């Protein structure tokens, strides 16, 4: 088999396909999205045979669809990011009660940092809460092995199984042997078999609860002796133990190798320790942990997000009456939040093992005081992003009118950045739509505006819109329709009609949906034409009751750029009003401050700045006839 450099998420897709997965569904979210995309690519190229893959409208829809497919006997794979698990929690908790038939694996990617998420929640806790086993890889290679094992485990015990990688596993790459083709497994028993057990009722739930409490100890027992909880010992009779999970295990191993190499160089005795990686945090392998802890006085636990392994060892010490001191997040021996890292583990391990060889303490020696500050470079809306026009137009339409601008999850969360400064709140997927209604009830004199993207609109705004119509809230919805799910890498959605299986379905018309739900004032506009966009926003905001503006213009990632805009240096006064108004990254002041400069390599020629300049100093070929950017 040829070797290929695969990102963790790509490797997990191969592993699931090699395990015979038949139905794959999820909703995009960093850092999980590449798994479904890889399955779709391999399906399209003919490598993955017999598989159905889709982006579902949201995580709940995806998991419910997969519950059906699993009951029919198919091996199924669900993917989402950690907050997606919140959305799919309703089906997950009940599904674990009624059980599954075809192997059912949930790939839920956590995001310590957080790097691109709303929360630092820990899916290992979710597994415990839902009473579902969870596997926690420390490298992409290990995740690959866990993915294959998860399907077996799931079918063996009739339970959903969660695999919980984190960003640094999902987005790390290494070389893998890849198969020429994969084939989905046939349906178990040839298809769905009717049985009263599939129907959840209080009586069935009581019975199912017994099944769960009976199977978890058996799964625990299997984990006790499994390969995912390896223990190594260095030196004789160690008193100190190191416990680690997820990518922290890789950091700890790396740091220990650095310590040992430094001891070797300087002729110091290498420290004695025992190390246990826990790849099966739930059900927690208590007996394996007890064997590991035998003879140890102190253990230091490295894990990210919550103190799950630490809690396991504290419980172990209590239930087994061990004289064991457990150190970790709770006593601030390790970081309480954010990511761990090799350098952090190194310092803490040197102290814990009382091992201080020369040449270890001066990492980051180049991090000197007195260095110049690097330029601030926060993420911003791309040059030419149509959302920029939408935000600017709504603010212009509102003028000095008191208002609250509810944002949502997607690229357009970046509308909060200066100079647009067009978002007052952001909570979770679809929340802006309903939060605006709360503001309108509490403060009827404010204009309450909710921005939502097209993908988020279908994922989780529809019930909120129905609520506004039903309860007659005076709010304005601004749908930023850029014809894709942009933030996570341009995935299609119901409004585009593009599917991962190939054939196009009829795109669902957003305005038609709003009207069908009873929003009578709906206005469509091009957000990159300032007058048109402001007029549309004004009309909707002035309408009493629920109203909507639909700003339609494709994401710059989907279109070929038009010729760049041009500044007439004789007309430009260098006032900088354009930069302060819209902050397009393609615009900047010339070094002498006399004139605005447009970086032709960044400008995509949208022409919006033409409308913003008070002196008419900017022209753009896109504004000439036939000059619009082509899809």
């Amino acid at each position, binding site marked *: 088999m040829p070797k290929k*450099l695969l990102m963790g998420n790509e490797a997990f897709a191969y592993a699931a396909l090699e395990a015979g997965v038949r139905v794959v569904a999820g909703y995009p979210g*960093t*850092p999980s999205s590449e798994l479904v995309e890889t399955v779709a690519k391999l399906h399209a190229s003919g490598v993955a045979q017999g598989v159905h893959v889709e982006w579902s409208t949201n995580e709940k829809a995806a998991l419910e669809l997969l519950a059906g497919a699993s009951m029919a006997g198919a091996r199924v794979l669900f993917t989402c990011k950690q907050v997606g698990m919140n959305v799919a929690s309703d089906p997950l908790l009940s599904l674990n009660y009624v059980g599954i038939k075809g192997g059912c694996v949930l790939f839920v990617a956590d995001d310590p940092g957080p*790097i*691109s998420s709303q929360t630092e929640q820990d899916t290992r806790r979710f597994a415990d809460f839902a009473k579902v086993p969870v596997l926690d890889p420390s*490298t992409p290679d290990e995740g690959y092995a866990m993915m294959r094992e998860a399907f077996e485990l799931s079918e063996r015990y009739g339970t959903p199984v969660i695999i919980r990688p984190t960003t*640094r*596993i999902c*987005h*790390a*790459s*290494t*070389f893998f042997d890849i198969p020429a083709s994969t084939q989905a497994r046939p349906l178990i028993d040839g298809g769905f078999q009717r049985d009263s057990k599939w129907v959840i009722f209080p009586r069935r739930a009581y019975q199912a609860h017994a099944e769960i409490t009976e199977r978890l100890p058996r799964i625990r027992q299997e984990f006790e002796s499994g390969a995912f909880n390896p223990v190594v010992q260095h030196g004789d009779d160690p008193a100190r133990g190191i416990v680690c999970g997820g*990518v922290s*295990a*890789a*950091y700890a*191993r*790396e740091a220990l*190798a*650095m310590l040992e190499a430094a001891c070797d160089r300087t002729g110091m005795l290498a420290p004695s320790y025992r190390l246990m990686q826990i790849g099966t945090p739930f059900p927690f392998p208590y007996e394996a942990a007890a064997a590991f802890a035998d003879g140890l006085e102190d253990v230091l636990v490295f894990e990210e997000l919550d103190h799950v392994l630490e809690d396991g060892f504290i419980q172990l010490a209590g239930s087994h009456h061990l004289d064991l001191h457990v150190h970790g997040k709770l006593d601030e021996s390790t970081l309480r939040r954010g990511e761990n*890292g*090799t*350098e952090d583990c*190194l310092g803490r391990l040197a102290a814990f093992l009382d091992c201080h060889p020369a040449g270890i303490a*001066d*990492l*980051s*020696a*180049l*991090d*000197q005081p007195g*260095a*110049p500050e*690097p*330029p*601030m*470079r*926060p*993420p*911003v*809306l*791309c040059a030419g992003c149509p959302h920029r026009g939408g935000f600017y137009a709504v603010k212009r339409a509102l003028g000095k009118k008191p208002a609250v601008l509810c944002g949502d999850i997607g*690229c357009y969360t*970046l509308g909060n*950045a*200066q100079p647009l400064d067009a978002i007052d709140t952001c909570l979770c997927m679809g929340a802006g739509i309903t939060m605006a209604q709360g503001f309108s009830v509490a403060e009827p004199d404010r204009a309450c505006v909710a921005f939502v993207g097209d993908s988020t609109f279908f994922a989780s705004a529809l019930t909120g819109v129905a609520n506004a119509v039903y309860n007659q809230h005076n709010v304005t919805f601004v749908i930023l329709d850029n014809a894709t799910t942009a*933030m*996570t890498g341009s995935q299609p959605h119901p409004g585009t009609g593009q599917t991962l299986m190939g054939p196009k379905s009829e795109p669902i018309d957003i305005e038609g949906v709003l009207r069908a739900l009873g929003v009578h004032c709906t206005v469509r506009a091009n957000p990159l034409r300032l007058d048109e966009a402001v007029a549309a926003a004004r009309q909707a905001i002035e309408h009493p009751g629920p109203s909507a503006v639909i700003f339609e213009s494709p994401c710059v990632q989907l279109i070929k750029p038009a010729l760049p805009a041009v500044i007439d240096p004789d007309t430009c006064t260098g006032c900088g009003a354009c*930069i*302060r108004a819209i*902050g*397009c*990254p393609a*615009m*900047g*002041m010339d*070094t002498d401050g006399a004139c605005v400069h447009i*970086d032709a*390599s960044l400008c995509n020629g949208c022409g919006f700045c033409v409308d913003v300049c008070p002196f008419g100093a900017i022209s753009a070929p896109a504004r000439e006839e036939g000059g619009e950017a082509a899809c």
Partner: protein
Amino acid sequence: MLNILIAGVGGQGSVLAAKILAQAALERGWQVRTAETIGMAQRGGNVTSHVRMGNAGECVHAPLVAKGTADVIIALEPGEGLRALPYLAKDGLMVCATTSIPSVMTDLSGEAYCTEPIIAYLASAAAHFCAVDDAAICDRVGSRKVLNVAMLAVAVQLSAGADYGLRGAIDIDELKEALKNCVKERFIALNCESVDIAVETLQKA
């Protein structure tokens, strides 16, 4: 173990540069891990790619380069070189493109973004430093897209026969072979040309 960090701004091609290095390491039979920043950071933010290779047969555990351990930093932009500096090992090599990419924040703050003091600071802080007139190389090739590969070539060439940087672990021919496996067929000639021009520029200097 060789630790390489590639620092730049979203869209400059740091991910491809990391892939090419990984491919070269694979050809040598070494274990290799890479990691990238993906997601929100890509929207005009700073991005880093980490490449770790076990060139002495070591096992590579962690995907990320630890601070103070990068043998090489390839900075595709001066300010990003400065941001990445804490990762450089005491005896490390930094190659840094001199062309700056302004940020909206600096424009809004009204303070000019001056690269000269940054480059001067990097030159004094790094044990081995090379400022690269990337604009001249890219102009000769006729494309800014080759910046990443040209900067790789500079790092490889400066490390030839040296006891720092890549320590001669990968040579220019291996770099060209590796990039052939990583870029689209129609871009191979352009990228190989950029490698030659980058090497030639160093030899003249």
